[in-house]
């Protein structure tokens, strides 16, 4: 019976060019909307699978404002059964702060006598791309951590984490408790059913506040990169462009 905590982050949708807020410090998601990082969608799926396979339970956690409850409800609609909302201004929290806040929740749970066995996170957030929160959570708890996992399974007191590396596909068999960060691709996130969505609305969300003042992310400002000059040479329309394409391939040295 594995107790799994899966951590998710509300991030702006990345379907259109980002809009930077007037103060130059954030992304304005008013028009684009927000979502959960793609890696975390897979982490949620894995949390649900582990809970199902071990007759355990999966809890979702996020740190953010009131609006980030949307992402908790999304996870609750696909099989997670409990949720913790760390209520805080996410812009004030750097990756080390977020890790510290998550570790506080994990320790508090352990103090109840029903500790988490597995903490899952996305490998990196789609917006800030910090690549470190999971590792820092592990160090804060003195737990082992495996990063970049495509799958994580639990058998008794051991987690089997699969992660690609230069050697090939590596298997890390690690004694619980463990932190694992997840990459998209190993599992297919399930779609919420109507019943799942209805059920998610009724789940009581535990709200906590961090017990410390965050150090911050070090962000000085955001800017859009210089626009890419449009230098495209149109080689033609449809199939009739094939000879021009071949000429370019030859010029580039791709074909002789």
């Amino acid at each position: 019976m594995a107790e799994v905590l899966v951590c998710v982050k509300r991030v702006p949708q990345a379907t259109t060019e980002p809009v930077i807020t007037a103060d130059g410090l954030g992304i304005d998601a008013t028009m684009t909307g927000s979502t959960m990082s793609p890696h975390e969608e897979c982490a949620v799926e894995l949390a649900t699978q582990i809970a199902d396979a071990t007759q355990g339970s999966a809890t979702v956690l996020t740190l953010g404002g009131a609006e980030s409850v949307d992402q908790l409800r999304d996870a609750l609609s696909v099989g997670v059964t409990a949720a913790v909302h760390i209520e805080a201004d996410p812009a004030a929290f750097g990756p080390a702060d977020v890790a510290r806040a998550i570790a506080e929740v994990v320790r508090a749970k352990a103090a109840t006598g029903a500790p988490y066995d597995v903490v899952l996170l996305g490998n990196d957030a789609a917006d800030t791309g910090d690549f470190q929160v999971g590792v820092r959570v592990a160090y804060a708890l003195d737990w082992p951590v495996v990063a970049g996992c495509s799958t994580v399974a639990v058998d008794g007191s051991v987690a089997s984490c699969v992660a690609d590396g230069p050697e090939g596909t590596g298997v890390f068999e690690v004694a619980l408790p463990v932190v694992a960060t997840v990459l998209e691709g190993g599992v297919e996130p399930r779609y919420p059913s109507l019943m799942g969505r209805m059920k998610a609305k009724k789940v009581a969300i535990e709200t906590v506040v961090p017990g410390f003042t965050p150090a911050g992310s070090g962000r000085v400002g955001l800017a859009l990169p210089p626009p890419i000059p449009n230098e495209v040479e149109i080689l033609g329309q449809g199939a009739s462009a094939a000879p021009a394409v071949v000429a370019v391939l030859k010029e580039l040295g791709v074909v002789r």
Partner: protein
Amino acid sequence: MALVYVEVDGSELSDVSLEALTVGRGLDGPLEAVVVGSVPDAGVAQLREFGVATVRVAQAAFLDRYAAAGYAAAVVSALSSSGATVLVGPGSPRSTEVLAHVAARLDTAMAANVVEVQPVGVGSPVTVVRQVMGGSVRETMRVDGPVAVLVVAGHAVEAVPAASAGAGDVVTFAPEVSAADLRATMTRVQAAEGADTSRLAKARVVVGAGRGAGSPDGFGPCIELAGLLGGVLGVSRAVTAAGWRPHHEQVGQTGTKISPELYVPCGISGAIQHWAGCSSAQTILAVNTDDEAPMVTRARYAVIGDMHEVVPAVIEALRARS
């Protein structure tokens, strides 16, 4: 001064390691490097060529099987010996993981996807510019702490040898680790049949296919073209999300980042998610029905048309030549 964590790929250093050395050399003071495992002679020659004065090589039996915390312990030991205040690493998944461990161990800040280190005065925190939002936004970030840990964005910086070579003195050391550092050690490597992303990441030519493929059966011509050009197939997230092709073929922010000499995206609009993975291609030749699609306007060459007509015609033209 800076210490650069470098990785070996075959008989040489990885391309992204050379990029990290270029960034590290731009900082004040002598340049040092740390390698975990062994470094081939050609790698030492490259380190000299890129201006490295001292190469610290961590060697121990426990390093035979990968454990990120064990690797990090070795890097921390090299940091301590070198006295470096900036640690720079290449933009590979493993380097990023190891440096995250280092940052956590030292309780110091880490910046990933760095594209520029801004000049600062002595005693001031290092300030960097880095990619966020899949590379569509640049963040200026102050990296506070006793050691600034920086991971350079892969293929975002040109690797440039030093004006004058470094001594490249090799110092071998045996790092110490605790049992806790080896709790998450790779147990075994399993067959990677069908899931080898390294071919895509290193491919000289990639032919991309997106939603325009239309169905799981719509990729044949792109695969054939890739074969004719000595390349491989890459696909967009829309394709893998639809279940048309496996995830290990996905190019993008949450897939493989490619840097081929030629990328031929067919029926791919060029959304931010995809651009994050292909923007390092040297030349892009796009095939798309929409002449205003971001992939077309960012390409060097484009054909406006249906990939199902254009790609077979190109294949026919190529075959007619041989």
